[in-house]
């Protein structure tokens, strides 16, 4: 990636962030829920109409839309994403505390997924059209149609309720509590990846250099591991980048099921309780992380694929 491309990508990130911030702010502005009312009912008081208006005035919620928006953006640029109404703590602190558990969960489930998908995909490609291939393809097909929250619930039923191997509530965030949530995510993802690995390996297997190597008497397994496998990794990296990005946001369902203390769980409770600053902060952070990861993935091509370096 040239310097010019890199700069334009970074500019693009900024533009998207501005757009996303505007969209989420607009949505919270026009939404029917009133954060002040939520705040009061949450603390157990029955507020009078005057009290509500007074607090709204104090918090600047009665100001015109653009005044509010620019004030918020200005604060964000200074690192102040506001305070959560619900938890009465700075949004940044809350998000930062939840980031690592979710990241941990994401990485662990990607690793688990690769352990399942890579061998299955390769087996399926090597033994194309045999019963192994049909079995793997059948399973992956069913796997794509499985709702991940259902998988999570079933795993929970088996491993937490029937045989009490893991805790039902994973709120501690330690390794034991990560096993089932990441297994759920890994199962949900592995079908897609197994197919991808299969396609990539099949494509490499049919290329001329493989035929050439085999004709020269190189052992098949050697070609498979040292030539075919590394070459079929490339398309996988793009997908991995996208998956990690969307996992950071998409773990919410699984986090809620297992009461895992991650970003998604926090976001869901923020949305339920109309905690606007927290929602806005969350959406912005996820967008930023997602785009930075995608950029890093594109940059990684430079190291993985020598052709990209030559193009320079």
């Amino acid at each position: 990636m040239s310097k010019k491309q890199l700069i334009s990508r970074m500019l693009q990130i900024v533009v998207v962030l501005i757009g996303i911030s505007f969209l989420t702010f607009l949505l919270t502005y026009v939404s029917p829920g009133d954060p002040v009312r939520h705040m009061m009912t949450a603390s157990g008081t029955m507020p009078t109409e005057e009290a509500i208006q007074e607090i709204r005035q104090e918090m600047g919620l009665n100001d015109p839309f653009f005044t509010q928006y620019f004030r918020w953006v200005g604060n964000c640029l200074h690192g102040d994403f506001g305070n959560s109404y619900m938890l009465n703590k700075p949004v940044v602190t809350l998000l930062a505390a939840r980031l690592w558990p979710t990241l941990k969960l994401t990485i662990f489930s990607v690793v688990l997924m690769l352990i399942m998908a890579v061998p299955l995909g390769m087996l399926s490609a090597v033994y194309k059209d045999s019963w192994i291939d049909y079995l793997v393809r059948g399973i992956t097909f069913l796997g794509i149609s499985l709702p991940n929250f259902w998988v999570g619930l079933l795993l929970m039923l088996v491993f937490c309720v029937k045989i009490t191997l893991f805790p039902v509530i994973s709120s501690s965030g330690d390794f034991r509590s990560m096993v089932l949530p990441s297994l759920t995510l890994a199962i949900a993802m592995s079908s897609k990846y197994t197919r991808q690995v299969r396609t990539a390996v099949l494509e490499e297997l049919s290329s001329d250099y493989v035929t050439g190597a085999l004709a020269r008497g190189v052992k098949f397994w050697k070609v498979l591991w040292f030539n075919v496998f590394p070459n079929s990794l490339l398309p996988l990296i793009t997908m991995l980048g996208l998956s990690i990005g969307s996992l950071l946001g998409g773990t919410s369902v699984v986090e809620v099921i297992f009461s895992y203390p991650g970003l998604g769980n926090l976001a869901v409770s923020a949305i339920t309780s109309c905690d606007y600053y927290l929602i806005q902060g969350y959406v912005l952070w996820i967008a930023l992380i997602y785009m930075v990861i995608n950029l890093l993935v594109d940059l990684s091509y430079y190291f993985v694929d020598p052709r990209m370096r030559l193009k320079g």
Partner: protein
Amino acid sequence: MMKKENFFLKNKTFTIFGVLAILIILAAIFAPVVSGGVDPTAGDLSQAIEPPGPGHIFGTDKMGRDIYARVIYGARTSLVASFAIVALVFVVGLILGIVAGYFGGIVDIVIMRIADMMIAFPGLVLALAVAGIMGASVRNAVLAIALVTWPKYARLARSLVMKIRHRDYVDAAIVTGSKTFYMLYRYMLPNALPTLVITAATDIGSMMLELAALSFLGFGAVPPSPEWGLMLSEGRAYMQSAPWLMVFPGLAIFVTVVVFNMLGDGLRDILDPKTE
């Protein structure tokens, strides 16, 4: 008649899953008949949390409502909402994509930058935020998912239009005085349609999953309406004592999604002989 028989025999996947899909749709339409006239929202507390048995083949929930009737009625919500999402993103994406690809310039830039913005963002997060902020309802969940899905269709339609935009026969049609609307309708639309239909058909299943996920989190269907995602979420608390509460709705989602995914794949094989 002979020709039709051959078509169905030749495309076995499509035929089998087409029939299954029609069965599911019929079950949804004639839910009152299929569920034996049981009201899915009427509970009888004296029969709460009954295991599957002769009276209630899928058991009952905490309100004493019949799970079987709820699963059957749930097909209505799930099917109508997913078809609505797909139809919505199909139409919006198709129109915006064709317009962007055909006119180019500033129109293209504005539409595609908005689309890029939506794509450069994990969809479920935005859908969650939108559905949550607008308030929980099936309609809002549909709008939220549609909002994050249309760019995919717009991009696809645009790229298909761009491919033929400057072909000689297109230029010739313009030079000979074809009106703009006629150009869009007769030249651009037919070119983009087949690929988009395939995409839409294969997307129905994943739309169902997303919708169920939103309902599961409490940002879609609201109680007491029978919706599969919502039923799963309600059944969660009774996992230990009444696992049937979450087994049957989940199974319903799974089976329906499998059928529609297979149908989509079958349709793709028919319309697009290039794949496989």
